[in-house]
Structure formats: C-alpha cells, structure tokens
C-alpha cells in the first residue's frame, strides 16, 4: 500500500470554525485525498484517535489550561510538523480576550471559575508553548492558505500524486 500523509486535527479553546471549514473543504477534496491522507485523529469525524508518529498535526484554538498545554506538548513530540490553524491558534484571539480584562471586579467575578476548573492565568497562542512550522491565519482559517500547506506537505513527505 502506498504511503499516506499521517495527519491529526486537534482543537483546543476556540469556536471550531476552522474545523467546520475543513469539513466543507472535504466536499471537494475527499476523493482526491482519500488515497493520500491517513486521518490518525480527528475527533469531530471519528472516535479512533492516535497521536503516535504523525507527519503533520493541525492545531486549532488557543491554550487555556495546563492539561491543554500538556496535550499540545505531547502532540509536538509525536509529530514531524505542526501547523497552527485559525486566529485563536495563531494569535490567541478572540479566545484570549480575558487576558485584556482590566476591571478588577470583572476579574474577581471570573476568578472562581478559573480556579475551579484549573484555567491558566493567561490564555496562550500555540507558538507561546511549542515550535510552529506553519501558520494558517484567519477566523475562520483561510482556505487557500490551508490548501497550499497541505499540498506543500504532500510534496515534502513524498506522497505520490502530489
């Protein structure tokens, strides 16, 4: 069997708008990609999930908790390339909007939730924590840039028909 590009799609704190765009991109590209791409993990589409030995991990969303940070670091260790997808992953916003709250009463009001559910003190963008190889900016992600990135990695990993 010909080698496929092993990808994982992981969402953290965000609206998952880029996930939706990705599922819509599949309307046009699924049949072209099915022999080229092995979806090792994409929770919105399948239960089976593996983050071992990935070629490319796509990361959507900002990092809000220590557990998310640990998971992100684990993904980074297990993938050759890591791509930040969408504005929350690339620049942190709008998921990091609580970082901008200056009103003391407001911060007191949200503090209880932050403590109870073990939030990080500040919401972070992906590159604050791990090395990012490529960015797909936009809210939602820019489809054309995403396709360029996919095609680039199909070529780089020597996947046939790329």
């Amino acid at each position, binding site marked *: 069997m010909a080698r496929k590009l092993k990808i994982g799609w992981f*969402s953290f*704190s*965000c*609206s*998952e*708008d*880029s*996930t*939706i*765009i990705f*599922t*819509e991109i*599949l*309307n*046009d590209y*699924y049949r072209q990609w*099915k022999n080229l791409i092995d*979806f090792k993990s994409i*929770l*919105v*589409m*399948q*239960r*089976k*999930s593996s983050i071992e030995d990935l070629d490319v991990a796509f990361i959507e969303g900002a990092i*809000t*908790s220590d557990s*998310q940070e640990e998971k992100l670091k684990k993904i980074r260790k297990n993938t050759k390339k890591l791509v930040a997808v969408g504005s929350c992953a690339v620049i942190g916003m*709008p*998921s990091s*909007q*609580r970082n901008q*709250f200056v009103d003391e009463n*407001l911060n007191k*009001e*949200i503090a209880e*939730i932050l403590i109870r*559910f073990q*939030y990080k003190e500040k919401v972070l963008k992906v590159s604050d924590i791990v090395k990012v190889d490529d960015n797909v900016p936009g*809210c*939602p992600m820019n489809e054309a840039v995403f396709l360029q990135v996919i095609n680039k990695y199909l070529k780089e990993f020597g996947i046939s028909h790329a």
Partner: protein
Amino acid sequence: MHDLDLNLADISKIEGKASCSIKIRNGKVDDVKFSIAEYKRFYTKAIQGKDILALPQLTARICGTCSNAHLLCAIKAVENALQFTPSPQTVVLRKLLNYGLIIRDHALHLYVFVLPDLFKKDSILDFDENDPIEHKFLDSAFKVKAAGNLLGITVGGRSVHAPYAAVGGFTRLPDQKQLLEVRNKLLNIRNDVLELIELLNLRDSKLIRKDLLYAALIDDEFSFLNGRILETSGKRINEEEFGNFLESLIIPYSQATGYKYRGKIYMVGALARLNLGKDKLHVKTKQSAGKFLSVFPSDNIYHNNLAQAIEILHAVDSSVDLIDNLKISPERPILPQRREGAGVGVIEAPRGTLYYRLEVDNLGKIKKGKIVVPTGQNQIGIEVSIRQYLEENINNLQKKEEIENIVETIVRSYDPCMSCASHFLKFKYL
C-alpha cells in the same frame, strides 16, 4: 451488569468537547454525570463596551458551526433595541442565509456524525466506496453539505461568520445569476435528502423520554427567525418573555450552565419544532415527506435526527421559493439611530432556541448582554436521557464498549454544540 465505572473522556462526532462518567453498583445506576468540557471564553463579559455594529461579528465567533445563527440573533436583538425595522429584501436575504446554515449544519450532523452509527462504522471516512449504498450516501453527504454551504457563501459572503450580514442590512448583495445557480443545486439535492429521511426513519434507534417539555419559536412559514414561543402545553408567549421563564442551574462538574423552562426539564431543537409546528412546513415538504411526518409529535429523542432531515427538505423548498420571487434591488445597509434601550432577539438556531438580550447606551455601546444557547437548555435533558436508558436496559448491557457507543449516540441525537454552551458566565433571571 453488576458494577461499572465508566469515564468517557472525549465524546466523538459532536461539536466541541464533552464527557460522561457513569457509576453502576450492584446492578443499579448509581451516578451519571454529563459534562461540557470546553473552557469558557467569557463572551458575555467581553462584549461590554463594544459597539453595536461590531457586536454581531464578535458573538458569531462564539461558535464556528452555529456562527450565522449568532450573527442573525445578535443583529435582531440590536435592531430591536434600536426599534429598527429592516427592509423586506433584507428580511428575505436573512432567511436565505439561515436556510443555508440549516442545510449545511443539519447535513454535517446527520451525514458525518450520525450516519456512521447507522452503518456500524466509526466514521464516514470508513465508508466503503465499493458498496453501492455507502457510496451513494457518501456522495450525498458532500453534495448536500456543499449546497447549503454555497447558499451561505452566495448570500453572506462566507458560510461561517458571514461578513455581509450586518445591523441595518447587507453590506454586499448577492448576484442574481449566482442565486439561480444555487437554486438549481438545491433542487438537485432534493432526492438525496428524501433518501436520508427514508433511511433515518428505517434505521434510527428508539429512546422514549418521559415527561419532557418541548419549546420552539414558530411562525406561519416555519422560518426559524420569527414567531412566538410555543410549548407542549399549548401555551404561547412572545419572544421578549422567553427569558422570564428560564431557570439557570449551576452544574458543578460542567463548564456550562444548564436550564429548566417553567421549572421543568425541556428540549429545544428540530424535534421540538416538528412536534410543535409540523403543519407550518413548506407545502412541498409536507407532500414529499408526508408519511414520515405522521410520527410527530414524538417523544423518541432519536427522532431529532429524522426531524432535522425533514427540516433540510423544508429549507430547500423554502429557499427555492424565496429565490424564485426575489429580484435583487440595489440598497445599502441603513444605519439605525443610536439610542439607549434594551432589545431581545430570539431565533431558532439549528440546535434550538437561541436567546439574546442586549442593553445599549445612547452612544450605541453594549452595557450588558445575556445569551442563552440551545445546548445549555438541553444539557440537563441529555444527562437524564442517558440515565433513563441505563436504568431501563441495565440487565441487557454486557460490555463497556456497548455502553460507550450507546451513550455517544444518545448525546449525538441531541446534536449538542459545546463551543456555544460554555462561554458565558452564570446569570440569574428574576
């Protein structure tokens, strides 16, 4: 099954993150906890001080899949606060934008999330292209989703966070020729949708919920955007009153607030809409799906899937009619006069009733905002449904994997959206 501790950490094929823990002791269901695991992004606080023109695009970012519903509901609340009436053309375009969302969003749920369960597969990506039935439904999945997506793009500029929809109108108008192309694509998916309806009616599961109340915003054309709130008892209230009957409940293990309506567990969404308003569906939908409509009103929560499929057909038929009668006239958004006030916006998002209440100052800045989303309203019902299923079937359940699968299908039948549900601070209605 005698004893069991099950922790389903990441429920798959839903929008966002949710988990469920189950404890069975001595053959009895001891504990069930369904929790929404998305971290909050504090939108109801972040909107304070924002301008009314910027607000809809900001709250659209609450959720990628329901984004245009948030956009339209926020616009409605702002325009109501300013006592502004949109132009008839704007009203039609908003309906089309929302129908595009209904088609795309229900199709994503039914084809990508639910269909694998019906074919005993993990994923639509596992469908066998050599099997004619699986091949056909795979084709339909992409075709139907694409048609809804295209309607959203044509009218709103993008199917997610539509940039053209704004307070006062549309910043750019759709091209008449493109609308006709969309119309033909919509007609072209009609048979696919009917086949989906047939399949769901034939193969979907059964869980009859007891004592469940239904509520939905219904009007004479089943537009999802206007009308009055109907409930199972036959009571009708105006949308401004809806918030008065909502009771928020803090669920300590969940990131999201749960709700009761008039003190009762209730359900919003397609099943509620069909149970309460099936007679208002498009006449062609009623003709084509007549034999399937007879199951409603239904207390089988899995019929939410069938109801969504029927709503796709209604959205197709209604959109075709609207496009046939629409001649685009050049018009620009009208900027409403800024004034102090409060406005309520209620619409039916794909997953159910979406409620916005905004208070605006005389400069057009948001003083306060309250947002109640469908999944928050269904959250308690999901947990109770899981518990009911386990209690009724505990003697027949043998394997942990079997329970995991069933719990996932029950959650999926509600089509919850966790991104929406978890991003508000708690608040209390008086």
